[in-house]
């Protein structure tokens, strides 16, 4: 077990040797964080078959993160409203750098690298007003913060780079959080979530706003198809008796398509989608609903296909064989393909919210 002191001491360790790649970390296809049975936390490299390629202890519960496109470096963000992120050398298990959000701000828990891997983009939130920002950190300068711009909304959550280019998609969830725990929602009556497309310089290219009756639907997580169709997952914050669509599909320049599930199944989503992913073959898109213990699958036009049950499921990613990989808080790692969930492994640890794709997820 790594002590806090030992962990901080490793801050002094040198960055990964420049020639290392993900192959040196066992060629993981995903990163995922988990809570261990002893109460500790760790970051894992996972293959699409559910094997662990590395395990690195973390000092606290993480949320999501970002993997460098080439180098075996992972950025893990503290759970919201955390002000720190760690850049981890996944070969040696050491901390390369510790990032601190600018004064008065916290990280949302998500970030993304530029296509060339030189810049890290982080979603940042003004801790008082909830106004969103995107932070730019230059890898070659030891991850110095080199700039930032407004995210185009309140409470940005996930930030994603479109495949093959430096266009950022930002889920501005619309919620101002505060209070003693920093997680009390303060503006549910007036929230206005949006999905913003921006250049790496902060120029707004396109924006999706929800119709007035759906403004209680916080846009929080995003996935991009290799052809740049974007899927966004939502969490409903208004009257629980209403069951709005929790998935949207969008292409820049057009109106979003909101994807509902049949009335008889809608309650099983519990009005809360935790993650979203396209399938490996690109033909389907799925949202995970940890509160409802279910996975809702749609085709690319947004038509509902099926709803599958799995308790506390949240992490989901696309795998090369065509389907999805899922992780859950019970420790399960499952393959979802041909409409069936098939267990790949059961671990005695609780997988945290997200699976971060390293290959194929965003083809750089």
């Amino acid at each position, binding site marked *: 077990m790594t002590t806090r002191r030992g962990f901080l001491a490793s801050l002094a360790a040198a960055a990964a040797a420049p020639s290392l790649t993900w192959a040196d970390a066992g060629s993981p296809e995903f990163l995922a964080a988990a809570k261990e049975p002893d109460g500790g936390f760790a970051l894992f490299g996972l293959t699409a078959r559910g094997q662990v390629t590395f395990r690195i202890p973390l000092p606290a519960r993480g949320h999501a993160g970002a993997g460098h496109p080439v180098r075996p470096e992972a950025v893990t963000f503290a759970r*919201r409203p955390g002000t720190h992120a760690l850049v981890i050398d996944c070969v040696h298990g050491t901390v390369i750098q510790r990032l601190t959000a600018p004064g008065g701000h916290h990280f949302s828990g998500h970030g993304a690298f530029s296509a060339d891997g030189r810049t890290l983009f982080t979603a940042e939130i003004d801790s008082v007003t909830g106004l969103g920002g995107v932070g730019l950190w230059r890898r070659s300068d030891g991850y110095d913060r080199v700039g930032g711009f407004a995210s185009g909304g309140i409470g940005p959550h996930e930030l994603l780079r479109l495949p093959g280019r430096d266009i950022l998609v930002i889920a501005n969830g619309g919620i101002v959080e505060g209070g003693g725990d920093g997680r009390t929602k303060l503006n549910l009556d007036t929230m206005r979530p949006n999905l913003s497309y921006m250049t790496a310089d902060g120029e707004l290219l396109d924006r999706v706003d929800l119709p007035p009756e759906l403004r209680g639907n916080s846009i929080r997580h995003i996935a991009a198809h290799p052809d740049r169709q974007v899927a966004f997952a939502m*969490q409903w914050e208004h009257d629980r008796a209403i069951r709005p669509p929790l998935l949207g599909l969008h292409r820049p320049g057009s109106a979003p398509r909101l994807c509902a599930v049949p009335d008889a199944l809608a*309650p099983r989503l519990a009005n809360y989608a*935790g993650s979203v992913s396209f399938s490996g073959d690109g033909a389907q898109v799925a949202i995970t609903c*940890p509160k409802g213990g279910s996975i809702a699958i749609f085709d690319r036009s947004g038509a509902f296909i099926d709803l599958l049950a799995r*308790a*506390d499921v949240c992490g989901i990613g696309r795998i090369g064989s065509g389907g999805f990989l899922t992780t859950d808080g019970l*420790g399960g790692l499952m393959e979802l393909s041909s409409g069936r969930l*098939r267990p790949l492994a059961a671990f005695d640890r609780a997988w945290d919210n997200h699976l971060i794709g390293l290959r194929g997820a965003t083809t750089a």
Partner: protein
Amino acid sequence: MKRLAIFLAMLTAAPAAAQVDAVIDDHILPGYAAFSETAAGLRDTAVRDCGSDALRPAWNETFDAWLGVSHLTFGPVEQDGRSVAVAFWPDERGATPRALTALIGDQDRIIDDPQGAAELSVAARGLHALEYLLYDDRFAGSGAYGCALMRALTADLAALAEQIDDAWRSGYARTLRTAGAPDNTVYLGEREARQALFTALTTGLEFTADQRLGRPMGTFERPRPTRAESWRSGRSQRNVILSLQALSGLARELTDAATPQTDAAFARAIGLAERLGDPALAGVAEPSGRLRVEVVQQAVRAARDAVLEEIGPSLGVSAGFNSADGD
């Protein structure tokens, strides 16, 4: 010390498989059998006499039986949206009366097909649609079509109840019992079966607190008595009591450990619910009546807290890692 802790954990965790069996044998299977039996009785009554006077007692018995299992939100009841077809509530947008009005207005003959009712919108099916037909004046004089609709909906409900009961007996009980077996692709470890039952217990308590009690409470400035569950039939309070009794029964079966906090919390919540004296929860319209309902709601939430503190650790489970945390 650590070894001792592991040993103790094993001691308390070991009988849990027996507890899963106990819940299945003494809570789940009898619960669904009772629901299936009463729903069949309701169907048979409707065949003989589709008048409200004859049907109301049978409908109430069926609703009572449903409350014995309505918290079991996993397994066959979730297949094909059956739970929603049985109990479409809350119905914020009034979809049920709208769907029934349309059916009756059109004299839609789809219900003459034995499978026809299963094709209807879920809003037009199940216990709550039947409540409108039996208790709402708008639907009192629906004539021969109303009678045919009553027969179709009660037959549909009986079929749903029988399917759920059959599916548990013929397969799902085994799936839950054999959690962690190599061929079990639903429950990957023995702990997952306990987790499923524990989650049903905690979410059942949340549903009663937040929905059955919380919806009619609305806000202090704007209470919403007509949002109470089955207020038309005046059984909103009864639903709260019966759901708490069912959840208390599940809690008892779920662990062998002594659970004094849980027992006391359930006893208090059930006692308060029984003494409410407000069958349709209409009292929420007045500040004093609303306060009384709020006291029950707090007691139900206290029962949930006790369950999390006392039963969770004894089973080696907790509220979901992701579902409880949010993103």
